[in-house]
């Protein structure tokens, strides 16, 4: 092809690599097992990815603003336990807003520490991972939470319901993704998130109030976590205290797969959704071709490193690191 050099191809592959990999995976799995492209199966994958996906949407904001959030997993356990506990005590219609307020209060605390006290977000959220886990256990006394009347409650609609043939978790995921995608891409606030993450000093000199932007990112993240906790609680109507344990890293993996840089300043909501779907479909595809769930871990490892490596290689124009 005229004008399309080998270098251009390399650039294209590196920049859109994650989409190409996604397509290749889908085709490969479809050939290996035709059940994979069955609409029911695809719906099932998206549905089970929704919880991880909702959390990843919020973390995308935090990562783009140049910070990390490792506390989302234990925060999700917290909101799940709280909403299940309150459901039987004060009723579902009161339990849900109360849970959102409590979860977002935790998010505000983290946001205050990171944004206004300017503490290192990795360590703060690492500490909060442990602290919120302790808080959850103290709240529940270490016991599993269960809703007494599992059949009669309308609360299960969020995790199990259908509206016009579409599962409610998927609708919530899509609506939230669209709303947050617009917020990030089309509003002044969204631009300021990129500015703060890309170059915090320049953003400050341009008149942006950096702490406020970072603070709001953590509030958004905790809102998403509360939503994920609601979906989880409503889906299972009972939960252990460790339901979200380890999810923070899967969420981060999805965001990184989507191409967001941990240095901040890059990434989009759409790409994060792609990252979430890749993780979900790989898991599903491997199961369908008869491999155990843990093979997925190894595959994810290889994919994460290849994805980030290609991204970096495209930016510096060399495959290998110049470090001696």
């Amino acid at each position, binding site marked *: 092809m005229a004008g399309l050099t080998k270098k251009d191809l390399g650039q294209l592959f590196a920049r859109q690599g994650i989409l190409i990999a996604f397509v290749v995976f889908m085709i490969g799995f479809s050939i290996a097992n035709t059940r994979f492209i069955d609409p029911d199966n695809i719906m099932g994958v998206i549905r089970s990815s929704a919880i991880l996906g909702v959390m990843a949407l919020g973390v995308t904001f935090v990562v783009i603003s*140049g910070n*990390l959030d490792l506390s989302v997993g234990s925060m999700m356990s917290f909101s799940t336990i709280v909403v299940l506990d309150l459901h039987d005590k004060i009723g579902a219609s009161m339990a849900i807003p109360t849970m959102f307020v409590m979860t977002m209060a935790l998010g505000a605390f983290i946001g205050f*520490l990171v944004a206004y*006290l*300017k*503490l*290192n*977000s*990795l*360590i*703060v959220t*690492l*500490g*909060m*991972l*442990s*602290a*919120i*886990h*302790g*808080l959850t*256990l*103290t709240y529940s006394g*270490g016991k599993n939470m269960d809703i007494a009347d599992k059949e009669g409650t309308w609360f299960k609609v969020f995790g199990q319901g259908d509206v016009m043939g579409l599962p409610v978790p998927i609708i919530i995921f899509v609506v939230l993704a669209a709303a947050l995608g617009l917020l990030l891409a089309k509003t002044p606030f969204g631009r300021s998130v990129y500015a703060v993450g890309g170059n*915090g000093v320049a953003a400050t000199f341009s008149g942006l109030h950096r702490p406020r932007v970072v603070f709001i990112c953590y509030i958004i993240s905790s809102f998403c976590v509360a939503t994920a906790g609601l979906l989880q609680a409503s889906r299972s109507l009972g939960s252990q205290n460790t339901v979200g344990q*380890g999810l923070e*890293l899967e969420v*981060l*993996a999805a965001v*990184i797969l989507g191409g967001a840089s*941990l*240095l901040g300043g890059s990434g989009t909501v759409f790409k994060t959704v792609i990252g979430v779907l890749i993780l979900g479909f790989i898991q599903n595809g491997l199961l369908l071709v008869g491999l*155990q769930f*843990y*093979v*997925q*871990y*190894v*595959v*994810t*490892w*290889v994919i*994460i*490193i290849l994805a*980030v*490596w290609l991204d*970096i*290689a495209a930016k*510096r124009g060399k495959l*290998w*690191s*110049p*470090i*001696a």
Partner: protein
Amino acid sequence: MKSGTLSTLLSRGAIWGFIVLELIFFTVAGEFFSLSEKAFMDVDNMLLLFKQSAPIGIIAMGMTIIMVNGNIDLSVGAIYALCAIVLLDSMTWSMFAGLGDMVIPVSWVLALIVGVALGALNGFIVWKTGVDAFIVTLGSMLGYRGLVFMYNGEQPTSHLNWTLVDFAEAQFLGLHTATWFLLVVTLIIWFIMNKTVHGRNAYAIGDNKTAAVNAGIRVGPHMMINFMIIGFLAALSAVVFYSESGSVNPNDGELYELWVITAVVLGGTKLTGGAGSIISTFGGVLAIQLLRKGLSHIGADTETVNLVIGLILIAVLFLDRQLNIKGKEELKV
């Protein structure tokens, strides 16, 4: 710079002051709340404390080097589990059947080699691809855990060798075997960090990578060696712990990276690299273990430990930033 020296002194000695504070608090509180008749500062209790600190402590020494070097390693928990499986499983291999108890050193060496190899793989990827260590080890944390599961499914791997158990439970000069391992590792790593070219270069690279490159330091190999050291130490930690327990679950070692990083940060090592001390890390490890033991001694629920440690970590970070200018710098991830 009088205030400067004071703040340096405070930040250096903070962890030991904290330990003394913990000891006083738990001794006094123990008088009122404890259900047991024994005092908290009991000799046996303190010896046990050292022994229980060993698995986290040994890895924390490696993490200190990694973090001084300006990197981070999230895969230590998975390396720990994989080496434990290799250790216990290799003792039952038929090719070693004729060795008798000589199989022990062979299995140890095998486990340690696996640890070094896994660490080397991490280091090599960080060096050659230029991908940040946080992402590389986040990935390999998943990947290595996957290998653990692939090795033996979701079944626990068990093999109890009584000679080995006797060795692990032995006491020499009053200290348990695990304690000796922790002390020797601390000494050796202290020596490497303070008295060798490699250690000084690790500080130099962590402090200012560009300057280190311009000074002719080969940054890549140093990083890789550090990852091999932490891989070796994660394996050694598994060797020490599983020699005694004799059974490993595929989930073992999960969240170890968080405990280890907490201990190292409590000890005052900077995430930005270039600063940190092995002796303070040792203090950080003791402080965490003391907190766990102390809280259970005064009858607090185990869940409170997570809450307290998390909040203390944040408080330390806050104090550290107030005392130390370098802490104000942004995280280089």
